[in-house]
């Protein structure tokens, strides 16, 4: 009892999406009676994240849960942790292959490019030919990959269909409006999370285009759920972050206590949340969903 695990994410302090995972580890920690610490680089600098993993390793926890935001940067510190005999589970970003190469027990997550591509396939089916990918986090490689996956599924060049929107909601909104005005033939939108989705909703609403453009987004929030219900957003890609936080804690605890561990990686997503399955999602959006 009382095992100590550390979860290291790549997200800056203020990234809201990670709260679901924080809540998940809190729940799991309580249920399993273990201690789980959440750590992240305050500004989202991946080099800082590598230091945090090294530091976590130095503190000899019973297990480390980490994202593979950048394989190059993180493979070293993570494989050192493995070599030190600390069980590692990778979550969220990164691929199964990378996880194996590091020597982690398993990967719980969703590959970003594939998720973007999944979104793109749905969009293609809905007849999207020209789209806008609102990237509020242009410096994060995963964000760019999502846009690229979407573009590839549509079979078009990404080009300047991805915009660097910044994080300020009013600016995002204005930029989306400006883009849609200058590119009126745009018939698909992809946003990469609530930060860009909310202002985009406001922009569409103000331009009277709500519901006329095929709109997909990553991740959930109460506003997004509302928009799915009212047919403005077609789908939200839900990688079920709750599982990414909850499962590794449970698995690591069981490994520590009874030496049991599943043999394969787990895909927590992509799950598509649409009007059909919104009801349950909505209740916990932003907290457990």
């Amino acid at each position: 009892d009382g095992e100590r695990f550390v979860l290291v994410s790549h997200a800056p302090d203020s990234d809201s999406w990670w709260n679901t995972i924080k809540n998940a580890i809190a729940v799991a920690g309580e249920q399993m009676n273990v201690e789980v610490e959440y750590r992240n680089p305050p500004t989202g600098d991946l080099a800082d994240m590598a230091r945090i993993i090294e530091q976590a390793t130095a503190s000899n926890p019973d297990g480390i849960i980490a994202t593979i935001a950048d394989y190059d940067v993180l493979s070293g510190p993570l494989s050192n942790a493995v070599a030190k005999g600390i069980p590692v589970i990778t979550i969220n970003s990164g691929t199964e292959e990378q996880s194996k190469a590091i020597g982690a027990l398993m990967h719980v997550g969703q590959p970003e490019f594939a998720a973007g591509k999944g979104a793109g396939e749905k969009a293609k089916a809905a007849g999207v030919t020209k789209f806008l990918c609102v990237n509020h986090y242009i410096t994060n490689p995963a964000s760019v990959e999502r846009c690229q996956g979407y573009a590839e599924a549509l079979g078009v060049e990404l080009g300047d269909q991805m915009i660097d929107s910044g994080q300020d909601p009013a600016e995002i909104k204005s930029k989306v409006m400006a883009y849609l005005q200058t590119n009126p033939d745009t018939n698909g939108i992809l946003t990469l999370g609530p930060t860009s989705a909310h202002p985009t909703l406001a922009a569409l609403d103000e331009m009277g285009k709500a519901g006329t453009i095929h709109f997909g987004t990553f991740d959930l929030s109460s506003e997004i759920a509302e928009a799915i219900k009212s047919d403005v957003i077609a789908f939200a890609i839900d990688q079920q972050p709750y599982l990414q936080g909850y499962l590794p804690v449970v698995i690591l605890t069981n490994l520590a206590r009874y030496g049991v561990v599943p043999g394969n990686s787990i895909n927590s997503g992509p799950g598509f949340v649409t009007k059909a399955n919104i009801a349950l999602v909505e209740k916990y959006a932003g907290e457990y969903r």
Partner: protein
Amino acid sequence: MADTGEQTIEQLKEEIRDERLRETSRLRKMFIRPELGAICGAILVFAFFLVVAGGSGMFAPEGIINWSVVSAQFAIIAVGACLLMIAGEFDLSVGSMIGFSGIVIALMTVQWGLPAWFAIIVAFALALAIGALNGYLVIKTGLPSFIVTLAFLYILRGATIYISIATTRKTIIGGVREAAEGDPIAWLFGGKLFSGLFVWLSDIGIVDKFVAGPKAGQPVVEGIPMLVIWAIALIIFGHVLLTRTKFGNWIFASGGDSQAARYVGVPVNRVKILMFMFSAFCATVFATCQVMEFGSAAADRGLLKEFEAIISVVIGGALLTGGYGSVIGAALGALIFGVVQQGLFFAGVESSLFRVFLGVILLLAVILNTYIRRMITGER
């Protein structure tokens, strides 16, 4: 005694006529003003985008509203930063203050269910108190405001994130709009004015109407957002305060030479603390408008806004070291900032290049402004 005076004046008049400066001075006086650089800049920028993006809808009513809103945002914080900078200090905690105020409002309304008007008042009170603390520390310790407000940049941001996570387990808090429905104060920040006017304008064909979707038949421009009204109000307030009142003279004096001002009885400490509070006030107006418009607050709002405010002010001709500047200039700086940012979009330029443009414009603007300032003040 009177004789000596008279005689000397006559002599001096002679001398001045010699200088051959007097004839031009009237013309110069009209043109050579602190905001001249910003005026030229604004004209150039508009000319540029009229050529480059004239056909892209940038100057249609919707387009105008589009860049106006962005400029208005910059202007709101620029007015605060401008007065503070003229008073000789500056504030790096503006961005963190925006995040902080937003979360305070959202927490109180959504999480604790308090009425929106109460939350807004509390947020303003807190912001003013923190602004006063900033000013108090700067004055008491004699440290440069760069350091003190840099410390608050970190403290406030950290506290905001911590508070929002500790109380709600989220760093983004939504649902404020619903909670503020029908509130007696909230519309002051989130509403739109003159909707009727725009309906009429669309009826006579000046403004387009939506042709499809749920809003078909309504004008494409719904009204003037309160954000713009606030910006205009703050600009007018700041401009009148600075150039037309006693207090404005004190602001200039405090920034120009605080010791000299203190000696003639200007309450410099009070002026500076009040300006720190005003800067915090503007940040909170910004935050409240944003929260009310988008219905959510996030702990990371306002990142790097302090720089954007300072850039607007500096483009507008103010002196980084205080004692010189103009609110109109700062507003024009904000306009330039907003128009360039959105204009590049309308013009279809790769959006990451925006930062490069911004840097170059900043450099050119300050060089021009320095030249103008030297002509006015006789600095060397």
